[in-house]
């Protein structure tokens, strides 16, 4: 993974000092809250319902074991002993004291971490495929591109006061595991007409109250010209994105209002004028960054792993976990492990300091000291020997993270909701807990197969409900929390926005309705047909009917 040199280290150190200065001015009354807000937000510090929340950047979801241990330390020292991994591959702490925030940033800087641009109307921490560098279907490791974007976007002189937040995601494979079409800019690494490496660029996607699947604005951008093209997009957006209405200020509204073709024309015209002005990264610097992402020293494994076969045969629970949580690695004899942070009845994405430390130990022992955070709020051990899988599964069992539910109905994305968030209309966590408990039986979950449930506690859609195979949106109706259901959403390369099926349910009724929808799928599916495929074939009608057919 990328390791800071003295320049990167100096930037985060100076950032700590600058933020300490800002906090001191706020506490002394030199800064009022209105003017302090954008400053603290650019450092990931929110004011929530009960306390400050600090969001720490985990650039493109890549962590070292030492960094994860530091995150555990911060949870214990400054928070209530746990942290919450988010849909943007970051971690947030919900019980932070403003006076301590500079010290936390200093502790983070020790391990090359920070909270820079995890919030605010700026270019946010860039996200990428959590299987970067280890997936077999990858054209190139998206972390190289992501690190280039991280550096380019950090304290950008021109684009730090945008109309609204701005999110960039990168995938290196045709199989989109980073939901790129729901981002302000989605970048897919592709091969050009002469097999050269480059990018397909999508722009103007997003969730929120106006969900949009991003249109393609450039089918092929040469790799070396990435930064000038991004700069052109940002410049058009910064100049012409709406600033009169916060709900219409995202780039998706600009692209929609002037049309993707006209937007593209403006970007290309701007790009023509800046592509030779020294914005692009020199090849030598690209090569320097790329070296950090060289494969680790894998052992050569030529024989089938007999121990794995035996353990699967002897232990059905382990066999189920291998089915769902272990993924094909590009190197023979190795595997990718998803550690589910979704125990039935748990809070999606939450991990205690002890759990984080145990996972850091596993990474040291079995995965070249590296961990990934997925946008589905799970952790990943990217480089595991197949022969070690059983030992890892047993160790995960001891910390309560051995559930065989990655990609399954219990693998729920949920925003913090009204339990924490000042914007929420309804709670997300309790309904997530109720659903995961309802479908906790692993045999039943395996029978249902892949099914993504995503829950947002308000229209801002932080829980990605628009992209859920089953989406749940919490609303407030005259003081009562109700939950609307959407069906058929998808976040991958077949991205689609889910369809609202009708009026909202109370929380208990919503769980029952989901069960009836699932039962309807089981009844109507063809052999081997997954939920989303069945829904796309059959359409909404029988599912909607079942949802409202109270027993």
């Amino acid at each position, binding site marked *: 993974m990328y390791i800071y*040199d*003295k*320049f*990167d280290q*100096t*930037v985060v150190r*100076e*950032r700590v*000092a*600058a933020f300490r*200065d*800002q906090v001191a*001015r706020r506490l002394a009354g*030199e*800064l009022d809250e209105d*003017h302090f807000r*954008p*400053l603290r937000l650019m450092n990931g510090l929110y004011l929530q319902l009960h306390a400050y929340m600090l969001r720490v950047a985990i650039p493109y979801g890549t962590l070292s074991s030492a960094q994860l241990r530091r995150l555990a330390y911060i949870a214990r020292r400054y928070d209530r002993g746990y942290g919450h991994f988010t849909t943007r591959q970051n971690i947030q702490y919900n019980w932070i004291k403003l006076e301590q925030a500079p010290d936390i940033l200093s502790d983070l800087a020790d391990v090359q971490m920070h909270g820079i641009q995890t919030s605010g*109307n700026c270019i946010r921490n860039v996200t990428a495929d959590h299987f970067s560098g280890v997936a077999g279907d990858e054209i190139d490791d998206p972390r190289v591109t992501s690190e280039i974007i991280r*550096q*380019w976007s*950090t*304290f*950008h*002189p*021109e*684009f*730090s*006061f*945008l*109309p609204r937040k701005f999110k960039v995601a990168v995938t290196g494979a045709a199989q989109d595991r980073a939901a790129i079409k729901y981002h302000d800019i989605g970048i897919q690494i592709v091969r050009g007409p002469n097999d050269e490496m480059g990018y397909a660029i999508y722009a103007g996607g997003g969730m929120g109250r106006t969900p949009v699947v991003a249109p393609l604005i450039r089918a092929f951008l040469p790799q070396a010209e990435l930064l000038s093209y991004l700069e052109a997009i940002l*410049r058009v957006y*910064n*100049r012409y994105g709406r*600033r009169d209405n916060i709900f219409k200020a995202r780039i998706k509204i600009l692209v929609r209002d002037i049309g993707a073709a006209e937007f593209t024309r403006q970007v290309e015209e701007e790009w023509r*004028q800046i592509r030779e*002005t*020294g*914005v692009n*990264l*020199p090849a*030598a*610097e690209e090569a*320097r960054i790329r070296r950090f992402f060289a494969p680790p020293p894998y052992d050569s494994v030529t024989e089938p792993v007999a121990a794995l076969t035996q353990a699967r045969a002897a232990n059905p629970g382990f066999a189920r976990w291998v089915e769902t949580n272990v993924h094909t690695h590009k190197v023979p004899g190795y595997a990718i492990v998803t550690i589910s942070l979704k125990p039935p009845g748990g809070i999606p994405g939450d991990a205690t300091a002890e759990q984080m430390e145990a996972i850091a130990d596993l990474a040291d022992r079995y995965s070249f000291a590296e961990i990934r955070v997925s946008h589905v709020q799970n952790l990943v051990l990217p480089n595991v020997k197949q022969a070690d899988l059983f030992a890892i599964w047993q160790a995960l069992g001891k910390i309560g993270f051995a559930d065989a539910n990655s990609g399954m109905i219990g693998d729920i994305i949920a925003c913090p909701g009204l339990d924490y968030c000042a914007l929420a209309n309804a709670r997300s966590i309790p309904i997530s807990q109720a659903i995961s408990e309802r479908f906790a039986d692993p045999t039943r979950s395996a029978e249902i197969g892949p099914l993504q449930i995503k829950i947002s506690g308000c229209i801002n859609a932080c829980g990605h409900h628009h992209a859920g195979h089953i989406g749940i949106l919490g609303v407030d109706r005259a003081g009562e929390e109700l939950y609307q259901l959407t069906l058929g959403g998808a976040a991958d390369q077949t991205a689609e926005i889910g369809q609202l099926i009708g009026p909202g349910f109370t929380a208990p009724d919503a769980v029952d309705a989901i069960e009836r929808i699932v039962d309807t799928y089981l009844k109507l599916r063809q052999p081997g047909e997954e939920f989303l495929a069945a829904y796309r074939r059959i359409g909404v009608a029988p599912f909607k009917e079942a949802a409202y057919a109270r027993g």
Partner: protein
Amino acid sequence: MPVVNVATGETPAAHADSWVRLAEGEAPAANAQVIVPFARFKTEHEQLFAKAGAVGVEIGGADQVEELVPWLSRLGLIVLQFGVFKDGRLFTSARLLRERFHFKGDLRAAGDFLPDQAIFMLRSGVSSLEVGEKFSLDTLARVINAYSLRYQRALDAQPVIVDQRLRGNGS
């Protein structure tokens, strides 16, 4: 209001403004340095250039800097008027004026902004700030010198990290 020239590495000091804003309908005194709103400038530029000693124009976030291009070599000052401090359009306006249209005069930020924004401003080509009485020059001095390195090439003189790396200064 006092004016502060800004450049990295320098301690900012306030000085009295030699420019005056003309009131609506007010004619410039002979040889005065006058600032007029962009709308007035568009209709009266010839008279202004003929009478005043120097002409400055004030633009807001919504104004298109391309429209100023015919007169840039004759303008002594362009004021970027921040209606609200969040209006980031003016950072692009500043860069375009400097980089694309090669404006050489004073580029001044005025209105509602934070000392903490000054570093972004000077990197975008702003050369002076119009500040109120409460504006802390101490804070400004700390803020604009808070960072010794830059990831992006821009309009200030601080070292750019990629250049340092290419020179082999990294480890």
